[in-house]
């Protein structure tokens, strides 16, 4: 289940209500109860690009400790994807940082 070729594979609970969001300008569908990390990675393969030039990241600890899953919203807000519930209408950017908004 999930988008073909996406990083995370749903193995159960696929009957949860759908939630719409936009990832890198493309409409995507996640499920209610997903974290933002799950929502993005069941639709694609990356969350963010390392600020230090070593490539793409897709999260690591999934428990709010490593801070390797912060994503940007289109407005420049920052969200820790593993501990933020997905919400209807979120607009997320995974390919390179926009200028961060303070807050």
């Amino acid at each position, binding site marked *: 289940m999930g988008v073909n070729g996406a990083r995370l594979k749903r193995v159960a609970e696929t009957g949860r209500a759908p939630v719409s969001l936009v990832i890198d300008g493309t409409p995507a569908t996640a499920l209610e109860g997903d974290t933002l990390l799950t929502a993005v990675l069941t639709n694609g393969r990356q969350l963010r690009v390392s600020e230090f030039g070593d*490539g793409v990241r897709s999260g*690591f600890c999934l*428990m709010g400790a490593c801070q390797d899953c912060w994503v940007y919203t289109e407005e420049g807000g920052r969200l820790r994807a593993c501990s933020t519930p997905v919400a209807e209408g979120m607009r997320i950017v995974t390919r390179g940082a926009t200028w961060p908004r303070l*807050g």
Partner: protein
Amino acid sequence: MAVHGAFAALAGKVEYLPETLAWNIQPGALHVARDGVARKLPFDAIILATGATDRLLPVPGWTRPGVYSLGGAQVSLKAQACAIGAKVAFLGTGPLLYLVASQYLKAGAEVAAVLDTSPNAARFKALPLMASRPELLVKGAALLWKLRRAGVPILRGVTPIAIEGDAEQGVTGLRVKDAQGRERQFGADAVAMGWHLRPETQLADLAGCAFEHDALSGLWMAKMEPDGRTGVKGVYLAGDSARILGADGAEIAGRLAASSVLMDLGIAVPVAEVTELHARRAVMDRFRRGLLKAFPWPGHLAAAVPDDTLLCRCEAITAGELRRSASALGAPEVNRAKALTRVGMGRCQGRYCGPAGQEVLAAARGVPLPEVGRLRGQAPVKPLSIATIAEDA
């Protein structure tokens, strides 16, 4: 579930603050933040139960997309009903390695291999201690049997060589050296890795607790009595952040710490129950020591991480840069090395580079591990938005 029921019964009698970050502690006050608003919570006594995270060993390629902490792989499956990939390799050591692999198998994911750095012989040496909880030994054997029956390759005594793939597309497989020194390759689109857990001790540190180096685990632990008391008045520890005893053990440690708080506040507690809790805790501590012998932390592998491997995930700093801080720059201990290289200064605050960084620095300086010290906790213990405002501002 029993815990949830007990907590529900307290509704209305306690102030419950979910989704709240405790980011600093000072004498008699805890600093918390929620939704961008910071508050100071005064206390007479505090039980710190801050948990643990996976203990990691850097392996070439471990920052590639598709590599997750072992605990994270379990969180994804249990809390989100998602496997971290279609074909998952498990690398590390400890009972959680086999448990999570079997949970993936049960959920219908393909398990590429279970690759354990602990040698077979270590298990036999640990048996006398592990016999303290025979039911868990039986459970472990059953897990192993299920994995073997499903045809999952299980290798012990491996040395990780590299996680293959590229920095854009992510993991395509991994290579290890087996116990006989032969190179083995396994195709996988995800890797779950972890070497037991490391306690989250930052708040205990900021509260002024003393620390001691535990030779068996190679970890620095806050000094405490089995009853949860620390040397600091009003500060108590429980759960995995104190000693890694697992879920049952955490519950016992919590009851013991709570009893100590009550006693110190002059409130009577049932002595017989406390005595029994101590006896049960001692059994669990014996088993804990058995596990650490059976599945030892491979400090020698951490010390030998190649120079060009990223040690610090946060800021992409290599093991070689840390070694240079020891040799060319003369850093005698990890906090000095942190100031020179930034290893431990990034957003994870040393949670994922710390244990391996200590080994790299100690080996580079040719001194025993305890001599390079430990990263001091710093507030805020997790990132705090610069826009956070004080409640009464």
